[in-house]
């Protein structure tokens, strides 16, 4: 009976992890048919989420919210899976303004999608919300990093092979000067940094970052210090697989917050048809464990199965 309780607790996401184990739940319903005492015993055993008051075990409100989130993971991933990628991206960007998604989601979408995909997302945004994404970002995000975000989201980068190497070298130096002269809090408002990061083609920027390391002895991310948005921008442009692999890892960390966990669905869904193999390899190199093993260990039920299918194992 203790075993059964443990396994049902786990199924109801009582031991952490993502999603719920639908199969186990249904099996228990069958097993404990007409056995209210069994359920009573389970509730008393599950003290994290039930409190005994008098002769009943009351469900905690927190637990109900927790269950709502965990049950929804499968629903969310399936709905997102069905959606057109442009609509997904448009809705995620809209959530930044209207559902407190972190601003890094805008950086993620603006920098890891191709120019045509970003255009598609912007068209979808207009069709869905009767505003352009640029006007919404500019209006709703008044902090000092809005310049960067508006610039990134307005970009329509050249995607051809041509790179002006001399210019890339020059701009590596210009970035270094800008970083040195601006105060660390002001980096994100620096016009040269924003100009270069939000208008140059990705190939050009990769060359620029390479020159930066050669000329100044360290990668530009180190000199960007605590500037999270600039770091993310550089990472998304230069090594998107690393960015995504780290986002996935953050979701699985102990004490990960709600947004970090939501990112798991977003990353797997948005990259499943794009560069999932590369992300899997990168994840293994970075964290020494296979992505599919992390998923199997930390997620449950249909949510787990859908993640594993999307990840390609």
């Amino acid at each position, binding site marked *: 009976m203790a075993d059964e309780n443990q396994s049902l607790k786990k199924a109801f996401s009582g031991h952490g992890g993502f999603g719920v184990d639908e199969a186990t739940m249904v099996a228990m319903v069958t097993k404990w048919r007409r056995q209210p005492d069994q359920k009573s015993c389970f509730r008393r055993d599950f003290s994290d989420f039930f409190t005994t008051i008098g002769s009943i075990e009351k469900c905690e409100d927190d637990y109900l919210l927790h269950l709502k989130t965990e049950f929804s993971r499968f629903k969310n991933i399936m709905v997102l899976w069905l959606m057109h990628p442009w609509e997904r991206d448009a809705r995620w960007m809209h959530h930044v303004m209207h559902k407190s998604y972190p601003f890094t989601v805008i950086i993620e979408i603006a920098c890891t999608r191709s120019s045509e995909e970003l255009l598609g997302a912007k068209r979808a945004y207009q069709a869905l919300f009767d505003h352009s994404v*640029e006007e919404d970002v500019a209006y709703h995000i008044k902090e000092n990093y809005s310049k960067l975000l508006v610039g990134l989201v307005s970009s329509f980068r050249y995607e*051809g092979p041509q790179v002006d190497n001399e210019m890339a070298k020059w701009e590596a130096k210009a970035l270094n000067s800008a970083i040195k002269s601006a105060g660390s809090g002001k980096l994100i408002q620096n016009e040269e940094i924003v100009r270069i990061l939000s208008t140059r083609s990705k190939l050009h920027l990769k060359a620029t970052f390479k020159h930066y390391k050669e000329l100044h002895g360290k990668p530009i991310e180190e000199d960007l210090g605590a500037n999270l948005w600039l770091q993310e921008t550089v990472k998304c442009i230069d090594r998107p697989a690393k960015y995504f692999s780290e986002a996935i890892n953050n979701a699985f960390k102990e004490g990960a917050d709600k947004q970090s966990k939501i990112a798991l669905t977003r990353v797997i869904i948005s990259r499943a048809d794009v560069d999932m193999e590369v992300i899997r390899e990168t994840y293994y190199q970075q964290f020494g464990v296979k992505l599919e093993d992390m998923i199997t260990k930390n997620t449950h039920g249909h949510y787990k199965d859908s993640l594993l299918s999307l990840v390609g194992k």
Partner: protein
Amino acid sequence: MATLTVPHSIPSPQEDCEQLHKAFEGWGTNENLIISVLAHRNAAQRKAIRQAYQATYGKDLLESLLHETHGDFEKLLLLWTLEPSERDAILANEAATKWHAANRVLIEIACARSSEELFIVRRAYHTQFKRSLEEDVAAHTKGDFRKLLVPLISAYRYEGAEVNMHLAKSEAKLLHDKISDKAYSDEEVIRVLTTRSKPQLLATFNQYKNEFGNAINKDLKSDPKDDFLAALRAVIRLICTPEKYLEKVVRLSLNKMGTEETALTRIVATRAEVDLKLIKEVYQSRNSVPLEKAVKHDTHRHYEDLVLALLGCEEN
């Protein structure tokens, strides 16, 4: 309100390109023949002729035009023959790489095109120049002008008709406050002008006038020599009444008072299939003289013939 006139039945692109080839053959060039063909074909037809010419004679029609014609006639012919997006890309590239504070061609292109048209220009720019338009504009401009021009040419404005009157009121007040403080290049001013949809902006400018008595452009005239203020006024004018702004450019160009003589060429080429008729009407009402008359007075020979043809004049 286009001025371009295309005959009811036209020869096939093959026949047209053969006529053009004939116009280039031998000594000299038959400019009238060129005009009779190219000045009476729309963008799709010109594209078909170019393709037929390439297939038949193994070179780009533009190359032949470059060799066989010269001066202002050549310039207008080349601009006219190009597809609208290629044309805008070339004009934008010239404006960006040779940019100076009184140059407002980028503003013309950014504000007098629809969102989709502007995006097609940006795509054409990639193909032609192997860079993005915004990276060239950003790299060649600085300070307040860069702050204005980069978001302006990167704009992808919502094109629906919905207007939020509450927002129009609050943003009219915002603009008024900033203008009163002479904070012309304030981020909020730029945000409103470069991201809001055109219907939303029209509502905002109307609210401005209703609330504060003056049209917003009147309040932006405090220093007639300030190029940045002129740029802001151009943005607003081009969004509200592009034909009036463009008429002024044409008028100054004809009086040789403008800063660039090529303005007439540019506006005729870019507007003949759009609103050159409206521009003509504004010209007539503003100057009491038809535009054709001013053109006849101020231009000569084949250039004059081509301009008049694109203005929709009957052949003499």
